[in-house]
């Protein structure tokens, strides 16, 4: 169908999307990079002089930055480990014959549809609250001191909340991948004398490898930008104990109104995300050819 006429029409139809996305990417990105080299604070109107790498050195040497990087990595890593491990277990479980698969499935995927602010608040107040929360009650029942999750282990608590939100995503994708496995392969393995465990380990798990990679990469993209959950639970605190990179940049820019430093932080976040993105894009690109 590669006729001249349709080629021209095609370009015309793609143009609006390309122009919009190009503008969306280039204009703010250019501004962020530009601002990152200026001394620019919204609270101090006046000239915004060019200061070279000052914002970067300020942002990168800020102790909060190091904490934020560590927190970001812990948050991403922690959630990934929990959701992948849990997701594989759940996928295997849901793949078994049982009564009411449909309903269990719906229950398991539901957390994914709960908006981040709601899930964070419900967990914070109704479960983790040291006085009236359900966990406090459970602690009471078994006779231990109630634990103040968000004060004593803020980051771990947030990891827990975020894992609850993303576990369904991992489960759903791994389950889909698992069900796409040709059953004849499993039957062949069974004829070859493989036990249930070796069938899982040698056939199902390698088949899932690709889906796991997809889950890791996509979740990483989203997890690097976790924001609402931190905002409504701990505000990054106590201190900077639960501040991640995204929250730190937000705090610099919109709480301290330091546009220059915030922008420098933004550029750092972009670079980090790009490292992950390159791997993800390569995978998806391969799939396009297939």
């Amino acid at each position, binding site marked *: *169908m590669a006729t001249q006429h*349709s080629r021209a*029409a*095609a370009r015309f*139809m793609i143009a*609006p999307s390309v122009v*919009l*996305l190009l503008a*969306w*990417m280039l*204009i703010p*990105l250019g*501004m*962020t990079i530009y601002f990152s080299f200026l001394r620019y604070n919204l609270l101090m109107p006046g000239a915004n002089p060019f200061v070279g790498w000052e914002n970067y050195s300020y942002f990168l040497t800020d102790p909060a930055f190091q904490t934020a990087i560590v927190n970001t990595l812990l948050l991403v890593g922690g959630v990934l480990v929990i959701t992948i491990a849990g997701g594989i277990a759940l996928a295997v*479980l849901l793949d078994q014959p*049982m009564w009411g698969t449909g*309903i269990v*499935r719906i*229950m*398991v*995927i*539901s*957390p*994914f*549809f709960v*908006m*981040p*602010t*709601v899930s964070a*608040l*419900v967990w*914070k*107040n*109704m479960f983790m*609250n040291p006085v*009236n929360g*359900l966990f406090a*009650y459970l602690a009471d029942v078994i006779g231990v001191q109630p634990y103040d999750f968000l004060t004593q282990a803020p980051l771990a608590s947030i990891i827990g909340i975020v894992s609850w939100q993303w576990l369904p995503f991992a489960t*759903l994708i791994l389950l889909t991948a698992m069900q*796409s496995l040709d059953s004849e392969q499993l*039957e062949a393995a069974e004829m070859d004398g493989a036990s249930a465990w070796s069938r899982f380990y040698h056939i199902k798990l390698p088949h899932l490898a690709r889906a796991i990679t997809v889950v890791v990469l996509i979740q990483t*993209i989203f997890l690097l*930008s976790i*924001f*609402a959950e931190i905002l*409504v639970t701990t505000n990054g605190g106590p201190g900077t104990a639960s501040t991640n990179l*995204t929250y730190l*940049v937000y705090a610099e*820019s*919109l709480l301290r109104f330091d*546009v220059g430093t*915030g*922008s420098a932080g933004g550029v750092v976040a*972009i670079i980090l*995300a*790009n490292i992950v993105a390159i791997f*993800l*894009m390569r995978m*998806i690109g391969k799939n*396009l050819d297939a």
Partner: protein
Amino acid sequence: MARAVTNKTKAINTAIAWTVGILIFFPILWTILTSFKSEATAIADPPVFLFFDWTLDNYTTVQERSNYFRHFMNSVVISIGSTVIGLAIAIPAAWAMAFVPGKQTKNVLMWMLSTKMLPPVGVLVPLYLLFRDWGLLDTRIGLVIVLTLINLPIIIWMLYTYFREIPNDILEAARMDGATLRSEVIYVLLPMAVPGIASTLLLNIILAWNEAFWTLNLTAANSAPLTAFIASYSSPEGLFYAKLSAASTMAIAPILIMGWFSQKQLVRGLTFGAVK
């Protein structure tokens, strides 16, 4: 594997799966139940599960105190608006890329996807300042623009993967049968693409409804959708469990139901076709 599974294994599986399922679903269930309790019952010790005086008071209170309905409508307008506009821009583009692929098509698609990888915080500052200068802060229009743009790559990709499954032969057959471009689109392409467009629509409404970075940073009282409105419960109002629950239940119910219907499409949409 078509083989008889003993009822015993099946019963064990069922028991384990239901227990796990209920545990995972419990926070949502608990929120829904609490929304029908009085504030006192909500923090009763020991907690009450089902046997309490069910009341709708919380729902009316939430509405009266904070004009809940307005935030709800903000969410509706913003999520549906951005999705519909996104579809209008994306359908022609996805059609062209799926059916008239050129040498650059793959690169264009990958590039579009890469814009989605841009962390929002990287462009927070300039966008905030631009919106302030253009008077778009705390407006529905502003949010519709932003959400349209951030979800456009996903919309194009989803449509593209659906369109690509429509065999080119069929469109060529229509052309051989004398169809003009217009009738080709109306009589052949659209009817075959409707399911794909519908699931794209559904998934994107869900994503836009739950978007919680830009909605929190670019709105205040006026155009705040439910994500931002609920965030205002972070303290100290959040300690009124019953009201928090009522507000939350209303915020998640419509999307939860839509989500249940779109679980299959979700996988494809969120993995950009990498897992089907």
